[in-house]
């Protein structure tokens, strides 16, 4: 029954409407906290405000309910707090995408467990509307859980990053989704606890099968969407226990994740449906013919000379920078150049890396001031006046085919117009095509120098060569 925890109702210990107001206060702190994330100057304070809101919500919950099993509650808080703190303190910035994926998963499973506990407490005797939100909490929470851990595996390399396409995958997923709906209807109509558990099982399988066919470079969209789901699951759990803090907090996170999802999809010129269902980047046919087109290979000395005599340099980082852990070396090179009077900025494509803002965090870790981190709209007008663009581990986001070749699969995707710069230096392991499996005409341009090497080793060798310039 929901009456125990009615929204805006009398509380157990008779404090009247104070408790719901305190939950509202917590939700207001969440909103203020998110608002302060609109500037790097205030963002840290914003995060603290939001965590203060969370503390209020937790303390109110501990005081306001006639908790009998203190041991269970405290054990959960201690175990979870220790694991969470260790993960947060130890994670390397390059591994941030998989950590966020894991946290999404924990949030999702927590909401599903709250709904399961409610089923256990009430023997699944729900009003229809409560049954619906219970089923939604279970389904969304479980998909978020299993989907997030598949994403986690793809991001940390324990699962292959390439899309894994199962024959008839889309049909199987559609049938599973329909099955989850049908079993939910049965569960609600028959007040059947076992049926709710079947919903969980179907949703767990669906989460795995939905994320398995999605390739590594599409992870920014997937993580954002799972982030949104974890919020919606929390909001549904809020309906289950009739708590406004959960409903508001969950709705905020659902909205945040949805905005990011849309922005990431837009940055790839694709719809969310296309990202989720197309298996983009799956190996189809043979390797792309790169022909016998000549490329200009560069030595560290060539690059050092070009950079040293430049006035404006823009660094374009991609996922390869994270893989090579090259952010500190890049910062060291930039410092040397700045000492010579060269202007160094960084142009960051929205889908560079494996999650939104991934590159920005890595460069911030290497002490690059945030005012030198330019987004797509800020950087594109500048390339025409840029002497040298240094591309480290980026490929598809600087592929001019997206602008010029209507037959290209990535045609129409917004790119960084690096080819407008006087000189382009590309640091790359080999000529192999990028994630999308598309040849990059940028590599064969007259003003492009290719430096074939691991990102970090390449930058360090250029730093070494700078001494001789």
């Amino acid at each position, binding site marked *: 029954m929901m009456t125990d925890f009615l929204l805006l109702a009398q509380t157990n210990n008779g404090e009247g409407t104070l408790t719901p107001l305190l939950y509202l206060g917590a939700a207001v702190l969440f909103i203020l906290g998110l608002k302060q994330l609109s500037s790097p100057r205030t963002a840290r304070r914003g995060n603290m405000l939001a965590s203060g809101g969370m503390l209020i919500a937790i303390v109110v919950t501990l005081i306001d309910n006639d908790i009998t099993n203190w041991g269970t509650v405290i054990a959960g808080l201690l175990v*979870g707090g220790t694991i969470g703190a260790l993960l947060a303190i130890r994670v390397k910035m390059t591994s941030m995408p998989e950590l966020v994926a894991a946290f999404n998963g924990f949030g999702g499973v927590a909401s599903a467990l709250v709904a399961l506990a409610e089923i256990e407490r009430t023997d699944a005797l729900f009003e229809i509307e409560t049954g619906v939100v219970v089923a939604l909490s279970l389904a969304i929470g479980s998909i978020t859980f299993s989907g997030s851990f598949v994403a986690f595996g793809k991001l940390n390399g324990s699962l292959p990053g390439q899309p894994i396409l199962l024959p008839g995958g889309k049909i199987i997923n559609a049938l599973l989704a329909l099955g989850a709906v049908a079993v939910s209807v049965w569960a609600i109509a028959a007040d059947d606890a076992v049926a709710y558990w079947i919903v969980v099982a179907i949703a767990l399988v669906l989460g795995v099968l939905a994320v398995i066919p999605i390739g590594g470079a599409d992870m920014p969209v997937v993580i954002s969407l799972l982030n949104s789901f974890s919020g919606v699951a929390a909001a549904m759990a809020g309906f289950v226990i009739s708590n406004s803090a959960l409903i508001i907090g969950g*709705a905020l996170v659902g909205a945040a994740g949805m905005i*990011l999802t849309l922005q990431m999809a837009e940055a790839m010129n694709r719809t969310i449906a296309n990202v989720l269902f197309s298996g983009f980047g799956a190996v189809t046919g043979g390797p792309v013919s790169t022909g016998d087109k000549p490329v200009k290979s560069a030595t560290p000395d060539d690059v050092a000379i070009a950079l040293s005599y430049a006035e404006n340099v823009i660094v374009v980082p991609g996922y390869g920078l994270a893989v090579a852990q090259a952010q500190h070396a890049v910062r060291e090179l930039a410092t040397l150049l700045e000492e010579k009077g060269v202007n160094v900025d960084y142009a960051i494509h929205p889908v560079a890396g494996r999650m939104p803002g991934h590159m920005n965090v890595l460069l911030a870790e290497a002490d690059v001031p945030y005012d030198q981190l330019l987004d797509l709209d800020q950087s594109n007008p500048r390339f025409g006046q840029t002497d040298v663009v240094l591309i480290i581990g980026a490929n598809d986001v600087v592929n001019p085919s997206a602008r010029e070749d209507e037959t290209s699969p990535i045609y129409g995707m917004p790119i960084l117009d690096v080819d407008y710069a006087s000189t382009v230096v590309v640091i790359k392991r080999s000529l192999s095509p990028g994630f999308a499996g598309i040849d990059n005409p940028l590599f064969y341009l007259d003003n492009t120098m290719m430096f074939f090497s691991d990102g970090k080793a390449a930058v360090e060798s250029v730093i070494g060569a700078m001494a001789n310039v």
Partner: protein
Amino acid sequence: MSAAFVSGIVVFVLAAFVGLEVISKVPPTLHTPLMSGANAISGITIVGAIIAAGVGEGTFAAVLGFLAVTAATINVVGGFLVTDRMLEMFKKKPGKR
């Protein structure tokens, strides 16, 4: 539908619009901390988890409650801490302060 449920829907819809307004103003450079911070906020489900663990009866309810509190706490503590760690690194150019 009960009045409480309807008012819950009202709150949900309004909060979603507030979220869209507030979050569309977050610059791309802060998208990772936004995501981890928002993630920590979705850990608000810890409220439901504590109630489930605290007032549930029987072993199975206790197991569900314990797992719920643990997962939600990982999300809350880990999410806010790692967001703070990231935001601490975002600095302006020295001298421009």
